[in-house]
């Protein structure tokens, strides 16, 4: 086995093995558990770094294992996959740090971190899947490994949220499976390829292909929280804050969005999907989701619920980008995959901090929190402004490319959708910012935990992660043109995805 073959497996193993060991560790072995977690997370980052360098240089990483005759579990690390892998690996490290701080002293931590690691392993598998079959395997594993995290608190409310989560995702998985087996039956394989593979079938199969597309998108759309399949996401906010981070930024909704990208680009191929008239309905669905999510977010008093609806809306930016025929839209969608993750995880970290430190769960309780927890609130503010798309933040970059992509694809209406959404974003985030910074505190905090050292506004493990991710939010906006930015990588992907199908990759960024 060559290095190019085992590297992808090592990426999986770097979270799988620590996870399995953690499962059987006695609850009290905190030191070893923490070490395992961090060693795994850092090892993964190192491995991902090696992969990034290799893929940028054009090396191909891949390995496959026959599961049934004609059916392979296959992995590859390509530019698109690495975008997702890098995002998850980086955020996993911060989420782990945050979770260690957040769960200090809580029961069942071995179980929690075990499933946590499995969850990330599943995400890595999704990112590196070289065919739809492998994608599905890890997609379902992700469902299963997140369920125990969602219900971790063991309360009736947690169970309700968990059950709804399962009902949606398992039903979605069933649709996805149907589509995949059907496709496999028609094509004999489901390997991802830059030009797509569905075009190999003749036009007489158009109806079947459209039905399969519907099934596949319904399957991944559940996790991507496309309206009307989004109902689980607001319910799942009962989970502990690190799990919300996982659901909204690191793994679950991202897996769905990533699935849409793979299916459109590498199963159907953009050209063929366009020829089958699949892109416009997808764009419309994404647009509806964007507006509806933002609209619902307006009316949520529960902070995490508001953030959850915001996710519903923001993740569909990715789907919209994918559905905009042309490389500029693609770049916008892909870069938002990263940007949304960075921004949303910051928001959830901060929400967790408010809840843990002050007992704040509702927007209406947040008056004056900025003065009590200035650092947390600064991070929150940066991320919220990013979500709105204020210039100099990562969000602005995404929206600029998406708008340009919509214009280039001749879908002027999508530009309006983006503007509407930005206005709604502002409408549900700015009141929060106003409350935390400018409204005076009149009442006592609902449930305040005084930190051990009073000059810290909260435990440093809880504070550090949001500050770092907030910094990223700014950096990715300010230095979008740097070759190390997510935008540069998204361009690389778009170039590779389109090189096979279209000649001209975009050279210059659109004007903002």
């Amino acid at each position: 086995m060559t290095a190019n073959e085992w590297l992808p497996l090592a990426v999986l193993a770097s979270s799988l093995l620590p996870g399995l060991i953690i499962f059987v560790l006695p609850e009290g072995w905190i030191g070893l558990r923490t070490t395992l977690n961090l060693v795994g997370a850092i090892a993964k980052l190192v491995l991902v770094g090696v992969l990034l360098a290799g893929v940028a240089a054009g090396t191909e990483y891949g390995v496959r294992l026959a599961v049934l005759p004609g059916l392979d579990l296959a992995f590859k690390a390509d530019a698109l996959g690495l975008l997702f892998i890098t995002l998850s690996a980086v955020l996993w490290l911060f989420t782990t740090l945050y979770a260690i701080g957040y769960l200090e002293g809580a029961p069942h931590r071995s179980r929690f971190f075990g499933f946590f690691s499995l969850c990330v392993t599943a995400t890595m598998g999704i990112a590196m899947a070289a065919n739809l079959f492998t994608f599905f395997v890890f997609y379902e594993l992700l469902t299963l490994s997140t369920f125990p995290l969602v219900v971790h608190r063991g309360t009736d409310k947690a169970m309700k949220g968990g059950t709804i989560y399962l009902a949606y995702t398992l039903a979605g998985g069933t649709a996805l499976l149907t589509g995949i087996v059907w496709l496999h039956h028609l094509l004999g394989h489901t390997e991802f390829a830059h030009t797509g593979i569905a075009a190999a079938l003749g036009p007489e199969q158009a109806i079947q292909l459209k039905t399969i597309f519907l099934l596949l998108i319904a399957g991944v759309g559940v996790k991507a929280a496309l309206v009307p399949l989004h109902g689980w996401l607001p319910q799942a906010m009962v989970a502990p804050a690190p799990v919300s981070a996982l659901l909204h930024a690191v793994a679950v909704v991202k897996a769905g969005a990533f699935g849409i990208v793979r299916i459109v680009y590498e199963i159907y191929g953009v050209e063929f999907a366009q020829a089958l008239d699949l892109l416009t309905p997808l764009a419309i669905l994404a647009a509806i989701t964007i507006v509806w999510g933002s609209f619902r977010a307006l009316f949520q008093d529960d902070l995490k619920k508001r953030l959850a609806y915001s996710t519903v809306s923001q993740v569909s930016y990715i789907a919209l980008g994918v559905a905009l025929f042309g490389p500029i839209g693609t770049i916008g969608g892909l870069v938002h995959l990263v940007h949304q993750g960075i921004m949303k995880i910051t928001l959830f970290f901060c929400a967790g901090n408010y809840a843990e430190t002050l007992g704040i769960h509702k927007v209406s309780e947040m008056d004056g929190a900025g003065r009590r927890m200035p650092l947390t609130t600064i991070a929150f503010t940066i991320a919220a402004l990013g979500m709105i798309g204020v210039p100099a933040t990562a969000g602005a970059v995404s929206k600029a490319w998406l708008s340009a992509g919509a214009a280039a694809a001749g879908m002027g209406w999508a530009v309006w959708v983006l503007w509407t959404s930005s206005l709604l974003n502002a409408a549900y985030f700015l009141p929060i910012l106003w409350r935390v910074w400018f409204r005076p505190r009149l009442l006592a905090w609902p449930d305040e935990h005084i930190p051990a050292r009073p000059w810290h506004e909260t435990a440093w493990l809880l504070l550090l992660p949001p500050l770092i991710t907030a910094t990223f939010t700014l950096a990715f906006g300010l230095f979008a043109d740097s070759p190390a930015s997510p935008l540069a990588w998204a361009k690389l992907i778009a170039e590779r995805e389109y090189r096979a199908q279209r000649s001209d990759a975009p050279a210059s960024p659109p004007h903002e």
Partner: protein
Amino acid sequence: MTGLILLPLAWASLAFVLGPGRGKWLAIGGLSAQAWLAFDLAAKVGAGGTALLHPVGGWGAPLGIDLAADGLSAVMLLLVQCIALPLAIHAGAYFKRGDAAGAYFWPLAGFLIAGLNALFLSADLFNLYVTLELVGLAAVGLVAAGGGAQQVAAALRYLFATLVGSGLYLLGVALIHGAYGTVSIAILTPLVTSDAPRLVWIAGGLMLAGLMVKTALFPFHTWLPSAHGNAPAPVSALLSALVVKASFYLILRLWLGPLAPLTSAIAWLPALLGALAILWGSWQAIRAERLKRLIAYSTVAQLGYLFLIFPLLPGTDALEAGIMQAFAHGLAKAAMFVAAGVIIEATGRESVMDLSGAAGHLPLTLFAFGLAGMTLMGLPPSAGFLAKWLLIEAALDRGHWGLVAVVLAGGLLAAVYVFRVLRQAFLLAPADAVVKSVPRRLEWVAFLLAAASVLLGLRGVDLVRLLGAGA
């Protein structure tokens, strides 16, 4: 090949001579040797690509009885030894010294396993009847052993079902013998044609019906939940994982062998019953009050999948789907019953509603239960998923969308009852809950079996290759 029959017969009878409660190490030693023999046989069959034949007495059919091992037999034998050995280790820890239920466990289990191995190797219809009786009576004995009224009633219910089943089968054999003068499968197969006399059609129907009763196919399933739901955990595991598969195997043998020219007309009947079994069994599992009864009804449902393959036979992937399902369910169900045994032992409660907090106290067991549940739900990467995949592909191959729908619906229903348990277990424990400590070995057996049912999903290709040998 003969070692797989002789060894368990020997250790079973010696365990009886040793006396009540004794024979554990004899059994574990014997089963280890058997496991080696089964792998060896699989390797030989797989390498040679043809069936191995052993004419008992040196006479050869039709005068004598032939033993035959092809890929299908080899797979089933592997299944038996791979499940029996861990279960023996489990049972060794489960039954305490002086436990009435365990007093004769070893000889009974030995005869059961001997009967199963003999059944999977036999190529003679009447000899198969004897092995069926050996398996059936040993299984009844295991259910009844040392039990109270409920267990005895369950055993009696089971006894009559299995006797009716073997009676119908025996009559079928008698008619076949009357028509052709032989009971050797190999000789009968070319003799039976689609213009066979009516007697042969009746015989085929009787044999299949009898075996369906023994496999607890809906609507003949009524004996199963009480038998599997009331027996001690290792017994339930043996019964659900292996015993019902034996009669299914025989149905498959007949269907693909001597009865092949007669079955095309009725191929939809087993599939229809199988579909009803999936729906009804799952529904009952969803409603069941006791944990073990839930698992037993899940067996009723999972057996239904086995019968969905009949309209797809012979065809690509269909047989593979059935056997993969049998294998996956065997491992997973054994794991699940063992896990349930651990939970009941630890909490002292049998009802699903009383499971709150179990996940906190018995994380490994619950994890095992979850893994086994994955296989039952057919979620990847488990072997149950591969079975589902193969089944759906085979159904698509023939354009049978109805079967696809049933398979998918069954998976979702399974999720409902599996998560019903997991959900309850994840709830916080009531303050007054007392949890006994259980030997870790019990937990590990459940985990290993469950993990095997999942990991087999990564090596399905080997199973399929072996299955193709000598078919």
